[in-house]
């Protein structure tokens, strides 16, 4: 599927629906190791995405930026800054692009990863959504088409969620649990995998 700016908006609407469908799971995951609000925060953010994309701006980067701003302004919490940054900072990858190419998609993930790392001040292994995002960026690299790229990213993100179970949180509200955070997946990583899974499903179409 050729994802132009109109379809980019459609894709992000599909992402929003996918996140909204999983709100309770996200809350439960955050109750286990955080403060239990991740689901309701993501709901606020992605309901705002739905709203803003009723009249999407032009350009793929415009669409991603608008979604990112909606998330950033409405989610709150760590997730708002982090997932907002994914889209606002990642959007640059699509500047002046007519469609989402596999290279553009990888650049998006890489830029998003860089932005989150800078913003959150932590690296991989800290048990955050980075542990889904960073492997996804690596897995998508070199893919020859968008379908393969998004599928690889989504699969890697899911594995990343699995991997977070073994990690000891060193940031966010889960940090104080220390070793007791082991065994539980990171809520933000789950969200990241849902986002990438929805992109894959949309592109596979």
């Amino acid at each position, binding site marked *: 599927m050729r994802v132009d700016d109109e379809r980019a908006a459609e894709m992000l609407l599909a992402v929003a629906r996918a996140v909204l469908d999983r709100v309770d799971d996200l809350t439960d995951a955050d109750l286990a190791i*955080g403060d*239990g609000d991740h689901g309701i925060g993501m709901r606020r953010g992605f309901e705002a995405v739905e709203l803003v994309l009723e009249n999407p701006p032009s350009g793929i980067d415009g669409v991603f930026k608008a979604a990112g701003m909606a998330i*950033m302004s409405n989610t709150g919490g760590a*997730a*708002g*800054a982090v997932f*907002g940054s994914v889209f606002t900072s990642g959007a640059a990858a699509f500047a002046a692009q007519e469609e989402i190419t596999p290279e553009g998609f990888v650049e998006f993930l890489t830029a998003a990863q860089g932005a989150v790392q800078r913003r*959150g001040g932590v690296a991989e292994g800290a048990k955050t959504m980075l542990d889904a995002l960073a492997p996804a960026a690596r897995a998508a690299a070199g893919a020859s088409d968008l379908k393969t790229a998004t599928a690889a990213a989504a699969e890697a993100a899911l594995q990343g969620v699995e991997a977070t179970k073994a990690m000891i949180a060193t940031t966010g509200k889960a940090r*104080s649990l*220390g070793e007791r955070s082991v065994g539980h997946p990171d809520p933000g990583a789950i969200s990241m995998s849902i986002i990438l899974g929805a992109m894959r499903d949309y592109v596979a179409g």
Partner: protein
Amino acid sequence: MAKPIKKILNDPRRAVDEMLDGLVLASDGRTKRLAVDAIVKSEIPDGKVALLIGGGSGHEPLFHGFIGENMGDGAACGQFFAAPSPHIVYEAAKAVHRGKGILFLYGNYAGDNMNFDIGAEMLADEGVEVRTVRVTDDVAAAPPERMHDRRGIAGDLLMIRVVGAAAAHLDRLDEVERVAKKAMAGLRSMGVAVLAGSIPETGKLTFDLADDEIEIGMGAHGEAGISRQKLGTADEITDQMMEKILADLPFQAGDEVALLINNLGATTMMEMLVVNRRVRQILAERGITVHRSDVGTWVTSQEMAGLSISLMRLDGELKRYLDMPSRSVGYSSLEVK
């Protein structure tokens, strides 16, 4: 998590919004609300160094209840236990800025740090000077060498009072920042939880404790503490907490301190006063003087039952600021002469 949690609310998703309206009304004209979830003082003189506080809701009266005389100029308010968005921070900051720069004072949580930082960058782009001091008083959250990993808990109130008074009386952002850093350097707290609270929007308790268990060092959102143990006596619990707190700075004979015993939500004043009695015995034994005490409900975690103990080491300057009168919906105190 068996029982549904009964609260007197309308639609939980509108609770923060309705609460902020109720808060402004409770201030008898002394605060006003912005179009976003932020509360600011009705009158902020030109040329004043501004103090912006804020964070997630659910800890009332912290933060938004502490806007007023010698306290915060504005509060950027998030949803339940969620940092405010950069947009809210930005709007609140613009509304309190009077040309002399803004001190951001808030609890040290990843979400708050990121959102306030983004807000600060937006302001920097417009040439507004922002400095940030994060409250990191929870000794249970990390060892002293990882101070930057410590959470902000009840010490927020003492910080808001000292820094609020400093920001009302000092001319330069630099100076206010200096006072805030000094106050923060001498501030230590720790909490204990006996029953969990709940977030209305999910209706779920934020943690599970057995009927005879308590958690020492529990965070303000139910974050894990340092010891889950059987409920002991007030004196045993107090001794255990004071040992950790006193050793941390460490506080020493001859120190003068402000003491704050804070209710996490559903604990009775009777319990807090019984704990206060023991805290004062311990401080007296160690030769530490209490310059002033506060015992009450200021930094909560919804209806969590439990309390926290905070000590701030004082010098002449900090005492002067703490002794100034405060007035807000959530905290008032007369001048101490």
